[in-house]
Each structure stands twice: as structure tokens, then as C-alpha cells.
């Protein structure tokens, strides 16, 4: 069967009532978490992952829970713009760049224009990236089928190197974050020799089962991020009104075509930045804003409410969220913290992420890709229809939302693993995350690392067994070699920048 037939079949399955219903529910939840400051796609997906077991039990397949979670991811990308525009506070980090022009336009009394531009750009970005995904995924999966342990480890190295070289965060702190995630993933038992290891404080009760990914993810994003949001916003917010009537919506839709250039730049750039491991939607949207401004005939209008300045980041964050799914599905490497949670979900539902998915589990892959198309259409319709409701929700006191999130986090972790040790560990990680964030330690690398650790360690060790302990195995193979070299260049990149700065300083 060719790709088109597989895709059409996938869309057909995605349109089945249960999947359609789950996509709709996911979009609504996603719009909600994306809209609420302090919550983003990763929080929504991490907190709700334990609840997807029910969906899997009900439907007997892994596609439906994945469609649900992917829809949350999509919805959140749409929702982020709503609070960026009407509140001036990004609903999620992915919508930071949307505040630059979205907020000024809202302050001019044109909030509905900004909201519609954001929704349309998100739709175009999501659709273009899904088309690119459909074309690229089977090809990449085909290439990846030839990968052995050294190639997979080289890709892992590339993922971590991207964080070090391109994330823009403090480098030693980024490395610490990566190490924390990787070491935590090694707690419990050595999967190769079966020997117990890193039983911290010699406690078998607490650590013999290892540290579960969800415990860290919900601790960081359910508890830690909520504490940070309470601390940063101090519960003080001011909403711009958006007067949304059908006639205004129609006029705003016509006006949104003015932003075609930003939309296009964001859509294409976002996809490719999204593919990069560790990059994700936030840098994609910031980059798209920058490039759009650079290529604009009127760059001075950026920052004052330029339609392109709203469209570019919004198209980019949606596009990047699809792009980030590409390495997750085809290589088993997540491109963003949210896709790391999705990857962990796939493992929990009994799937093996990676190139084999396309050959062994076409019943999972193609309905999911089909659901990207379906979810995108649902998202733009629901988004435009729900704007007034979402604005009302934004007035929901943060203390109520925060208390519910805390309860959901605690109950979710207990339900997933059914022991209190993990609940205590989650609280510890949450409070640690709050303090580490204050000190500007990036947390996303740790979340990705705890997911990638169980893949990275065995592939490294098996590669070294294969080569009798010779590290050159990562350099002298035709596919692993170039990937490792790129990874090394990325790791060294900050040092080159540092040396160049020093050299300029001495001149």
C-alpha cells in the first residue's frame, strides 16, 4: 500500500466516533492548559498520562490514548496565544513570542484580530507541518531501520549535544541537568548484568524499582512549575477584553490574510527547528519571530502589533510540535519535553518507539498521523468558537486552579504506580525544581534525559562490547560517524564562541 492509501485509511480510523471524541476532548483540555498561565502542553500531557490507561482499557489499543494526548499537545499550542494576547502573560513558554505583538494589538482594542490571526496561523502551521511529516516520516523510518547500537547512541549524543550547543542556557547547568536525568534513570537495577545499583541511602523500598519517569515529570511540571507561577505572577493579572461577534470574526478572518508571510515563515521554519532534538516549539517560535522581522519590509512595526509578528511564532509553535513528533516516532528520540512524555506513554502502552513502528505497527502510526489532520481542523474551529469561554476561564482564580492541579498530580502519580514512595519523591522533585528554576537551571534536559537514559546506556555499552572497548566505533561507521562529529561540533560550539569573544576582547 502506498503512503496515500495508508494515510486515507488512517484518517478514516481517526474519524471513528471514539477517536474523534477523544481528539475533541484532548483539544478542549489542550486549549485550557495552553490558555492558563503556568500550565502548558507538557504539564497537561504529563498529569493526564496516568489517566490514559483507562482509555487503553476501554478501546483495547494504544492509538486512542495517543490521539488524546497528541490532541492536548495541539490544543495547547493554540491556547497559549490566548493568554499571551489578552493577559500579556504567555500561557506557555511556547507562546512567549506571541506577546511581543499580540499584546500591543490587544491594548489597541483589537484583541479579536490578534486572536484570529493566531488561530489561523496555528492552523496553517499545523497543516503544513503535518504534510511535511507525512512525506518525511516513512522515508526517515526506512533509513533508521538500518541503525545499530552505535548509530542509536550517536543520535542520543546528538540530542544532548543540541541542548549544550543550541539551547542558550548556562552550559554547566545544562550539563548538570542532563546528568541528573541520566543518573536518575540508572537507579535501581543494571538492565544488562541485573546487579542492583545506586540504591540511594541503601533503601531498597524507595529505590529498587528505579525512579519512574512520570514521578520526575509530574514533580517538575505539576508541582515545581505551579510553585514558580505562583511565585512569579503573585496571582496578579489583568485581562484585555475581546469582543467576539460573528461579524467581527468574519472581518478578523479577512484581515488575518495580511499575515501570510509570517505564517509561511513560521510554518516551514518551525517544522525544521522542531525536528531538532531538544529544540522544540519555544525556540522555534522565537526564531520565527526574529526571521519574520528580519525579512519584513517594515521591521519597525514589529513590537507594536504587527500581524506577521503574531502569525510567525504561532505558526511556528504548532509546526514545531508536529516536527518534534518526527524523531520521536521514527527514531525513538523525543524532540521536546512533551514528546518525551508521549514517548514514555508509548512504552507504558506496550509499544517500542523507533523505526520498527512503521513496519510493525502501521495500525498505530497511520491513524495517529491521520488524527493530526483531523485534530488540526477541530482545533481551529473549537478555538475560534471557544474564545469567549476561554476568556471567562482565564478569570478563574489561580488559587482554585493550583489546588486542583496539586491534587491531580498527587492522585495521578499514586494511580500510576500505586505506592506512596513515588508520591513523596514527586514532592521532593517538585520543590527541588522550584529552587533550581530560581537559579536558572534548565529542567527540560533532565526530563528528556530520564527518558533517553534507558536507551542510551545499553546502546553505549553494547557498542563498546562490539568494539572491545574501542570508542572509534562511533566515528568509523558510515552513519554513526557523521552524527557523532556533528554532536562533537555542537558540544564544542560554545567554546568556539567563548574563544572568539576573548579574541575580540584582546583586539
Amino acid at each position, binding site marked *: 500500500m502506498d503512503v496515500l492509501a495508508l494515510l486515507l485509511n488512517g484518517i478514516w480510523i481517526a474519524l471513528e466516533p471514539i477517536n474523534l471524541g477523544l481528539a475533541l476532548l484532548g483539544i478542549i483540555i489542550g486549549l485550557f492548559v495552553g490558555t492558563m498561565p503556568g500550565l502548558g502542553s507538557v504539564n497537561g500531557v504529563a498529569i493526564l498520562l496516568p489517566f490514559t*490507561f*483507562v482509555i487503553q*482499557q476501554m478501546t483495547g489499543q494504544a492509538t486512542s490514548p495517543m490521539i488524546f494526548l497528541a490532541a492536548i499537545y495541539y490544543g495547547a499550542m493554540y491556547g497559549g496565544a490566548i493568554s499571551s494576547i489578552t493577559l500579556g502573560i504567555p500561557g506557555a513558554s511556547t507562546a512567549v513570542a506571541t506577546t511581543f505583538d499580540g499584546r500591543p494589538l490587544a491594548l489597541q482594542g483589537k484583541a479579536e484580530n490578534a486572536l484570529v490571526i493566531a488561530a489561523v496561523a496555528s492552523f496553517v502551521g499545523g497543516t503544513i507541518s503535518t504534510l511535511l511529516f507525512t512525506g518525511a516520516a516513512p522515508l526517515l523510518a526506512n533509513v533508521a531501520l538500518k541503525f545499530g547500537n552505535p548509530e542509536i547512541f550517536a543520535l542520543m549524543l546528538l540530542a544532548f549535544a543540541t541542548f549544550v550547543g543550541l539551547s542558550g542556557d*548556562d*552550559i*554547566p*547547568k545544562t*550539563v*548538570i541537568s542532563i*546528568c*541528573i536525568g*541520566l*543518573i536518575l534513570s*540508572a537507579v535501581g537495577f*543494571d538492565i*544488562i*548484568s541485573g*546487579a*542492583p*545499583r*545506586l*540504591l*540511594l541511602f541503601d533503601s531498597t523500598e524507595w529505590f529498587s524499582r528505579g525512579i519512574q519517569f512520570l514521578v520526575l515529570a509530574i514533580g517538575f511540571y505539576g*508541582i515545581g512549575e505551579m*510553585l514558580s507561577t*505562583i*511565585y512569579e505572577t*503573585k496571582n496578579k493579572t489583568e485581562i484585555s477584553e475581546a469582543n467576539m461577534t460573528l461579524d467581527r470574526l468574519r472581518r478578523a478572518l479577512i484581515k488575518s490574510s495580511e499575515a501570510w508571510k509570517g505564517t509561511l515563515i513560521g510554518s516551514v521554519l518551525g517544522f525544521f527547528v522542531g525536528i531538532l532534538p531538544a529544540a522544540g516549539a519555544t525556540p522555534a517560535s522565537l526564531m520565527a519571530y526574529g526571521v519574520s522581522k528580519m525579512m519584513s519590509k517594515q521591521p519597525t512595526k514589529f513590537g507594536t502589533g504587527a500581524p506577521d509578528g503574531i502569525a510567525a511564532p504561532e505558526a511556528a509553535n504548532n509546526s514545531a510540535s508536529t516536527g518534534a513528533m518526527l524523531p520521536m516516532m521514527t527514531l525513538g528520540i523525543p524532540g521536546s519535553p512533551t514528546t518525551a512524555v508521549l514517548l514514555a506513554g508509548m512504552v507504558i502502552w506496550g509499544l517500542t518507539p523507533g523505526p520498527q513502528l512503521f513496519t510493525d505497527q502501521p495500525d498505530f502510526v497511520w491513524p495517529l498521523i491521520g488524527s493530526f489532520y483531523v485534530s488540526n481542523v477541530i482545533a481551529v474551529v473549537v478555538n475560534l468558537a471557544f474564545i469567549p469561554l476561554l476568556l471567562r476561564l482565564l478569570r478563574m482564580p489561580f*488559587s*482554585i486552579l*493550583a*489546588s*486542583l492541579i*496539586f*491534587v491531580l498530580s*498527587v*492522585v495521578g502519580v*499514586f*494511580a500510576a504506580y*500505586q505506592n*506512596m514512595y513515588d*508520591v*513523596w519523591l514527586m*514532592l521532593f522533585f*517538585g*520543590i527541588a525544581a*522550584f*529552587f*533550581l528554576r*530560581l*537559579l*536558572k537551571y534548565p529542567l527540560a534536559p533532565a526530563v528528556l534525559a530520564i527518558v533517553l537514559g534507558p536507551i542510551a*546506556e545499553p546502546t*553505549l*555499552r*553494547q557498542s*563498546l*562490547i562490539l568494539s*572491545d*572497548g574501542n570508542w572509534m566505533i562511533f566515528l568509523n561507521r558510515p552513519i554513526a560517524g557523521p552524527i557523532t562529529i556533528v554532536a562533537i561540533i555542537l558540544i564544542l560550539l560554545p567554546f568556539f564562541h567563548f574563544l572568539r569573544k576573548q579574541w575580540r576582547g584582546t583586539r
Partner: protein
Amino acid sequence: MRVAEFVTATLIALASIYLMWKSGEGPSWDPTVKRFANIGINIDNSGPGSGFWPFWLSVVMMVSAFAVLGNALLGKSELSRSRKPFLTHFGLRMMLSVGGALFGFILLIEFIGFYGAIPLFLFYYIYFLGRHSLALAMGIAVAVPVFCFFFFDVAIRIVLPKGLLEPAFLPLYEIFL
């Protein structure tokens, strides 16, 4: 901020040393295996040992923690030059009230179970911290555990612990389970 930067980096460096020490532990059932015998790259021609991965990662983490300390000492990082307090007065109060409430919430679960602790936590948070009306606080504090009971215990059969309140649930079990 400056002090906090130093203290955190030092704690991370110390934790790295502890993790290096723990990584080198041999299997408990074989006391003849020496500490750090498992961290080599090719032990007895059978590849890296069980401690190889965590040990060397801990070394990298320790070096990075020293780099953070170095940057802070030389005043190269923004935080090490900052004279702002690590936690403002509001932050300290928030940590005590919110962090303390979370700690108390989980501790209470150990004694009176989820269905005793959830309403108390929600009521405290919404009524005392959020300063909302008594009716709203009571409404949410009752509705959430009721929803949780029907969702977890009844619908998906994940029985949440009830601690000392277990006897009160026996009649409900008879009706719904």
C-alpha cells in the same frame, strides 16, 4: 542569589561524589568484589560494568558543578553578581504556606487516606489561602473527592488508600463494587 548559587553548586558537587561512591558498589551477594571494580570500560573482555555509566556521569556532573562554582567565584554568571535575595518575603511565605500544605497533604494521606486528605487540603487552600467563600471552598472540597471515588475506585478499579477512614467506606464498597 550569590550565596544560593554557591550553596547549590556545592551541594551538587557533594551529591556527585556520593553518587560516584555508590556507583562503585559491587553486588551485595559477593563481598569479594572490590569497590570500583565495576566502572571500567572493558572488564574481563565483557564490556563496561554496571557502575560504568552512573560513575562517569557523576564525574561529569561534579566537573560541571565546579564550573558553576568557578563562574560564580569569578563573577561571570549573572546570578553570582546579583544582589537580589534568593527568595523574596513573598516567596518564603509561599513556600511555607503552599509547600507546607503540600507536605501536610501527603502526610495526611498516610493516616486518613486520600478521601480524608483531599477535602482538607482543598478547603485549606481555597478558603484560607485563596480567601474564597465558605460555600465555594466546601463545594469543591466535597465534589473533587466524590469524583475521584467514582472515577478511580468504581470506574477503573484503582483503589486509593483510605487509611483510618476505611471502615466508613465499607457500605459504599457494598453498593458500588
